[in-house]
């Protein structure tokens, strides 16, 4: 059994927390891009595409994140792709994030009055122009607070990636516990670090909510 002071524990967890942050950022950015793409094809409005996107969202909102990661982790090797836990976690969390974000943003786009679409159409704008100049700029203001709020869910979701063997904050906590036999201290520290990442995001989301309240509807 190795000797770990509280400082050693905190320092090693801090090193691992970098991976939590990196995974969160990657999943959030990539998930946002995929989510935006889904939002576009959905809003463009082929009924079959709408049904497909809705099914995609239902699938990811109706199953555990852990199962999604397992399916990616164990499924991709079957089609010949050798995936590391990092790739599987990134891909799984990206899909998860895209499903939730596209659903959040759909609500924001739908809250833009029909008149805005009609007015811009009467100016001869095509779909891309309508989205680019009329709808998205307005929807964006409504969308920012819940999007920031959802980023907290992504950070917390990365903890599940520890189960497929990706060494981030939670996994590091487990490994250090196995070396020190001090689960109370270690998991306490792990919880504090997640809190330090998530709480500012939560506060920021709440602040934005207050700021944009008069804009919505």
């Amino acid at each position, binding site marked *: 059994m190795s000797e770990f002071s509280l400082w050693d524990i905190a320092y090693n967890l801090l090193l691992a927390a970098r991976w939590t942050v990196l995974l969160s950022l990657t999943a959030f950015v990539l998930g946002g891009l995929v989510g935006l793409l889904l939002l576009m094809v959905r809003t463009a409005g082929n009924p079959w595409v709408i049904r497909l996107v809705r099914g995609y969202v239902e699938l990811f909102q*109706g*199953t555990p*994140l852990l*199962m*999604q990661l397992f399916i990616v982790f164990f499924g991709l090797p079957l089609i010949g792709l050798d995936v590391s836990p990092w790739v599987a976690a990134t891909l799984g969390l990206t899909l998860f994030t895209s499903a939730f974000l596209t659903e959040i943003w759909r609500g924001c786009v739908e809250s833009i009055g029909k008149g805005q679409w009609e007015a811009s159409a009467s100016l001869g704008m095509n779909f891309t122009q309508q989205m680019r100049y009329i709808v998205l700029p307005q929807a964006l203001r409504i969308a920012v607070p819940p999007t920031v709020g959802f980023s907290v869910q992504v950070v*917390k979701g990365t903890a599940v990636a520890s189960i497929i063997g990706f060494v981030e904050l939670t996994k590091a906590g487990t490994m250090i516990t196995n070396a020190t036999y001090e689960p109370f201290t270690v*998991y306490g520290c792990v*919880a504090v670090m997640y809190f330090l990442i998530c709480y500012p995001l*939560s506060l920021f989301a709440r602040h934005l909510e207050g700021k944009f309240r008069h804009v919505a509807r």
Partner: protein
Amino acid sequence: MAYKFDFGAIVPHWQLLFDGVILTTELTVIGAVVGVGLGIMGAWARASRAPVISQIVGVYVELIRNTPFLVQLFFIFFGLPALGVKLTEFQAAVLAMIVNLGAYSTEIIRAGILAIPQGQIEAAQSLAMNRVQIFRYVVILPALKKIWPALSSQIVIVMLGSSVCSQIAAEELTFGANYIQALNFRAFEVYFVVTGLYLVMSILLRMGLKVLGNFLFERRRHV
């Protein structure tokens, strides 16, 4: 070399999955009932603005909402024994779910309570109802009715989140899946089927909560 899918390999182990579904359901029902109960009390404390207790509840809510469920679970199962609190896997899983849902539902129900028009409460006061009566007869049911969809979603999220309880060897559905894939090495097939089971369970749970909501809130009109 193409992989041959063999979903039949799961069939001999159906009992494990069945037991898992039962245990996940048990966890969810206990967690939801007690968790929402805790949420109602927490929301009452928050909305009443009673000095100290309201702040304690506020800290509890923020702590839980800003840390992952998995870490809460590990803390309860591995960490609490250091304080002399030893829990079985099932107890730890249930406790973690209650604590987690308690925090989220406090926030959700509080929003419902704050949406009750002040006039309703004043009217009840003018009928000489005391605070408990006002809360019981005037505030909580309409408040719950308003936020029932959000609360239902949160309960579904907690049910899906319970899949990580397999990590402390609580024998719920994911644990059954892990066990089977360790027996027959058909990881993808097993997790695929179990994902489907979770999907069905979340759809059924959502429907069940809708029916429950109708029962709780619609029939009262005639009473």
